[in-house]
């Protein structure tokens, strides 16, 4: 295929060519960045909470004084455990995708705020909660009955805890985290074990790798650990068990108030928590699809015009020996050249767009492999769009050459 005559023809349509190339460049930049955003959100949605979500529910009550905490806990636990199908009911301060109750900065020295390890979620948990959650221990040992400490403020003064692998790798890279100490103001914590995965309450508010900076803290129920209960049932039962439990609260403890919004199954909480991300993913994909569709329409429209305009020339070419394939390939090559020009511009634009997004959103650099993928998608789009008009051009009979306009 000779490229020179194609370029010569394009030079006569500089403005239109430039416009289509610009459109492709813009589509390329948006496509790469939108796919990148979608991929990041998708990874976030897929976060491993580390707990048996399908078997768990949480029930929250409030409206009682701290002095009543132990009494409310005792009545609630007894009442909840009596519900048929309830495998366990235990105390917890927060669950993944629920409201955040205990986030605080931790440091490697007492009372020091200078070299902060990071802001972590402290999950206060009563006896039995570890088993109910279904966490997986990878190192160290589990809290024994003597390890549970009372908490009057938000956490115990001095307690042994479990941390997630993600937090351990961040705080003590390359070292065994077992027996390591850290402080939150004057409260002292020592690592007794490491769990595989355990998402914090609001993982989406943090950088992606911080979504599992969670500290599992064994706490004696009462004091600040009251009112939020982790319910466990068989997966097919848990929704029903929760319904029964919600209805039973008024009978078990008439003096407390059920928090309707925060008494749900963990699967429900997860769906609700990521709903906006799902909407955003749908929206990004929708806009990208529309943009590609409009670009394709532009190519179809413009090529159709060019085909109609060049009917006579096509006829002449056919009359002097060009095959249908030659004509088809002419338009395909022309489109390939325009799209390639657009993609070259688009790659630059994609990087500029990424730089702008990085300024306003906490985003890393666009990985390089998005660019060839975007280019491939646009080449394919261009070839598909041009196929129809090009086939029509190839169908122009040679006899057209002999007719006047």
């Amino acid at each position, binding site marked *: 295929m000779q490229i020179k005559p194609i370029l010569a023809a394009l030079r006569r349509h500089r403005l239109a060519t430039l416009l289509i190339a610009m459109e492709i460049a813009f589509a390329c930049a948006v496509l790469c960045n939108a796919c990148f955003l979608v991929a990041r959100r998708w990874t976030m949605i897929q976060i491993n909470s580390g707990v048996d979500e399908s078997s768990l529910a949480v029930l929250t009550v409030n409206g009682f004084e701290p002095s009543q905490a132990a009494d409310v806990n005792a009545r609630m636990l007894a009442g909840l455990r009596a519900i048929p199908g309830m495998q366990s009911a235990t105390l917890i301060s927060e669950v993944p995708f629920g409201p955040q109750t205990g986030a605080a900065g931790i440091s490697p020295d007492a009372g020091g705020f200078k070299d902060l390890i990071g802001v972590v979620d402290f999950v206060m948990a009563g006896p039995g909660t570890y088993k109910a959650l279904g966490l997986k221990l990878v190192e160290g040992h589990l809290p024994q009955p003597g390890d549970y400490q009372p908490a009057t403020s938000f956490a115990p003064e001095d307690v042994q805890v479990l941390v997630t692998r993600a937090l351990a790798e961040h705080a003590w890279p390359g070292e065994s985290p077992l027996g390591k100490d850290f402080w939150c103001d004057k409260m002292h914590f020592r690592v007794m074990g490491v769990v595989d995965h355990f998402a914090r309450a609001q993982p989406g508010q943090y950088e992606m790798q911080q979504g599992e900076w969670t500290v599992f803290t064994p706490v004696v129920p009462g004091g600040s650990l009251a009112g939020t209960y982790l319910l466990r049932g068989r997966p097919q039962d848990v929704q029903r068990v929760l319904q029964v439990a919600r209805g039973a609260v008024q009978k078990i403890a008439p003096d407390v108030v059920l928090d309707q919004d925060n008494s749900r199954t963990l699967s429900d909480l997860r769906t609700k928590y990521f709903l*906006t991300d799902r909407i955003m993913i749908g929206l990004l994909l929708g806009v990208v699809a529309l943009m590609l569709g409009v670009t394709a329409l*532009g190519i179809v*429209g413009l090529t159709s015009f060019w085909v109609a305009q060049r009917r006579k020339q096509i006829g002449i070419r056919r009359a002097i020996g060009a095959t249908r394939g030659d004509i088809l390939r002419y338009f395909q090559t022309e489109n390939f050249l325009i799209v390639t020009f657009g993609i070259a511009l688009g790659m630059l634009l994609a990087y500029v767009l990424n730089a702008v997004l990085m300024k306003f959103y906490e985003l890393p650099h666009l990985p390089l492999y998005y660019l060839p993928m975007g280019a491939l998608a646009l080449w394919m789009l261009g070839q598909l769009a041009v196929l129809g008009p090009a086939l029509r051009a190839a169908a122009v009979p040679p006899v057209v050459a002999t007719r006047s306009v």
Partner: protein
Amino acid sequence: MLGYYLNLALRSLKRTPILTGLMVLATGLGIGASMTMLTVLHVMTDDPLPGRSAQLYTPHLDPLPLEYKLRDDSPNPTDDLTWPDAMALLKAHRGVRQAAMAGGSLLLWPGRSDLRPFYVNGRYATADFFALFGVPFERGGGWSAADDAAAAQVVVLTETLARKLFGTGNAVGQTVRLGEHDFRVIGVAAHWVPKPLFYADQTGTQYSDADLFFLPLSAAVSQKLQVSGNRSGWAKGDETALTSANMSWLQFWAQLDTPAQIAAYRQYLVDYSAQQKALGRFQRPPTNAKLYSLMGWLAHENLVPNDVRLQLWLALGFLFVCMVNIVALLLAKFLRRSGEISVRRALGARRRDIFVQLGIESALIGVAGGALGVAIAQLGLWSIRQRPDDYARLAQMDASMLLGTLMFAVVASVLAGLLPAWRACRVPPALQLKAM
């Protein structure tokens, strides 16, 4: 002549119905998407108190110690005031009116068997609150400065809450149990919810929250009522005491009518900071003290979520692609009619006439696209109202936005038609006529 051009344009568009349809569709989609997001942004950045907002100002001090480091992931403590500072500003009385306030969520015991206790959001404020913001009353009124001083247990309910508790009867004079204390109802305020709730602490959801009761700040502090919103402390020890000089949690608004009053208030804030620095309480430069106007404060808080901004840019980018597309298509279409244009030119039409004729054709596409865009924007806004976000329910198009959409569509497509029309009217007629 215009009628004739309109007729020509219609004929020309009818000759290529599919292409015309596609151009209208592309304009409609681009305009619809952009107008959906522009409407969302418009309602989110709208003036919450039209007519009154220009006189409202919020002062901010910087009582932080020198070594305190601001963090991206936690709220800025200087967004709020400490109790001693708020009381000092209140006492100085440098504005026409001023009030300190904080949010609270209290358990309400209805004292009726058919209603379970429930949580209500409200505001703890000082006496001037109602006059400052122009809260309309249905019955009764607010409390006095004397009630503030006495920490009187009085409450103003909004009409919604009063109706829920007392039906259609007169609520004034009744008693409401909030948390552990009884409050006497002294007024019922009409439905009054500024969007966003600009005077609330910035950690809340300001587009969906509403205050259902108002009670004296002094009563809230003396009864140790629960305060919602952010509390930032920067000294060890007494962080939890509401009256601590090292914890900020209060919002403060003042009414300033003239530029002289505004300048004087700014100066007063700096002088106050300097005085506190001399006393050893403040450590940072006194010029850190700031006075924001209402709209300035909203801009500073930047309430519009990043996702909404991203969606707006996506929509505008999409419109741009649609418009470039239409430019290319119109260009090809107009240039294809070079012969026809040349005949008209040869018969005496000026370039300007050709330009107007082609301009009308592109404007026609714009009008059709704009009408489609309005329909698509309504669909888009409906889908946004189904979202779970707190701003979702505000997404409604008003008359000005509706008119704006149509204008926007016509302007965009006339602009898109300019280049092709200009290019087409510069076609040399002689050359074309020779080829015919």
